[in-house]
């Protein structure tokens, strides 16, 4: 089931929260000045926001969710579904969504569930929520989504300069008149090692050795509880799969690419995103980008890009947008959505 459409679901609002703490890549001293300049230019990340000690993805999501509920003037008692999409959850167990349900003051009748996805998570999360709304008589739902980067080693030049922290919230509600959301979701677990934290789960339960730092090449030192990126594999995957996935969802639903106002891609890095944009022959104006100020914010990159780059447009216009997430899993997917005058508060800082 790659393609499916879900009716009667409207995006009511989107918010995002980032840490106040700004980390500029010009100050990344682990590599030399020349390589640093090249890296900043090619990955497109001048600065990003990084959590301070003790702050988690769920803290950022909580603030984003709280603000969105307030601005929408939603009655919390009417929220019947909350999902937390993240690969940096608070605990191995329990599910962080349950903690957020209570912290946000949502009723016990609220279904709470975690979804363990990263870069593709926003599109998958929307499909999950929209299905509940369209088919399970749920009227209001909240997606909380985000990741934080203590998972990246400072001494790993392939990971540390890239990632930033953010947590976002998206409110969905039942609307008889809403245009259908059109999805195309895909997975390929044969590439699971392309982006991986090898230890810490049940497959490789953490031991003392998990904390040992090892060199994996010039400028790449990390331990097995930190994220490992196979840059070539991720790059090849992104160039191979993303554009066809986008074209397929458009063609399957007889949507002309010219009628889509904005394409919101997961913010992988500038090299990848520019290559995808060029393959699809899209002008930069139709492809908002938040890499420069926020970096790759993983699961939160699509909502963070919407709030930081096209806030004025989404709050005042009727838009057709395509969201496309791709990465860890490997997992990827696109959705075409139509929005009109959604609630979108300014980027929140914590």
């Amino acid at each position, binding site marked *: 089931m790659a393609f499916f459409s879900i009716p009667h679901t409207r995006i009511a609002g989107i918010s995002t929260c980032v840490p106040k703490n700004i980390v500029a890549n010009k100050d990344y001293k682990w590599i030399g000045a020349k390589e640093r300049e090249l890296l900043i230019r090619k990955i497109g990340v001048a600065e990003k926001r990084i959590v301070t000690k003790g702050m988690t993805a769920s803290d950022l999501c909580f603030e984003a969710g709280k603000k969105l509920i307030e601005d929408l003037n939603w009655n919390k008692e009417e929220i019947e579904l909350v999902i937390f999409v993240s690969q940096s959850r608070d605990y191995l167990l329990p599910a962080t969504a349950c903690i957020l349900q209570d912290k946000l003051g949502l009723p016990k009748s609220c279904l709470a569930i975690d979804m363990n996805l990263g870069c593709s998570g926003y599109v998958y999360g929307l499909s999950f929520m929209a299905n509940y709304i369209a088919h399970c008589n749920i009227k209001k739902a909240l997606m909380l989504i985000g990741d934080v980067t203590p998972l990246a080693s400072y001494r790993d030049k392939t990971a540390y300069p890239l990632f930033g922290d953010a947590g976002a919230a998206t409110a969905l509600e039942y609307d008889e008149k809403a245009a259908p959301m059109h999805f195309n979701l895909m997975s390929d677990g044969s590439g699971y090692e392309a982006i991986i934290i090898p230890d810490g789960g049940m497959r490789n339960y953490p031991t003392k050795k998990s904390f040992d730092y090892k060199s994996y090449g010039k400028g790449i030192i990390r331990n097995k509880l930190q994220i490992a990126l196979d840059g070539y594999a991720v790059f*090849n995957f992104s160039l*191979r799969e993303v554009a066809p996935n986008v074209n397929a969802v458009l063609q399957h639903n007889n949507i002309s690419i010219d009628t889509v106002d904005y394409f919101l891609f997961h913010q992988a890095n500038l090299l*990848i995103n520019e*290559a995808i944009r060029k393959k699809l022959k899209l002008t930069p104006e139709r492809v908002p980008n938040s890499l420069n100020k926020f970096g790759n914010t993983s699961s939160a990159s699509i909502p963070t890009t919407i709030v930081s780059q096209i806030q004025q447009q989404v709050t005042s216009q009727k838009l057709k947008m395509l969201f496309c997430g791709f990465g860890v899993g490997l997992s990827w997917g696109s959705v075409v959505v139509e929005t009109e005058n959604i609630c979108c508060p300014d980027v929140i800082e914590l």
Partner: protein
Amino acid sequence: MNIEDFILKIEDEFEDLVPHKLKPESKFREIFDWNSVNALTMIAMVDCEYDVMLVAEDFQKSKTIQDLYNIVLAKSAQ
């Protein structure tokens, strides 16, 4: 598709290169300050311009610009 065009496209992509310095026999690890970022830049350029996907092994078994061009040519014929 020819080697001259391939070289021009590389020179366009890598703004630090001195124009007309790059030759088919140039060893790309010597011409560039070769690193993974430059390799990924090359992959992106070749994908966009020739619809061919270079992979890490292609760089490992290549020394010169001509070697890379030959791989692109062979893959584009597939």
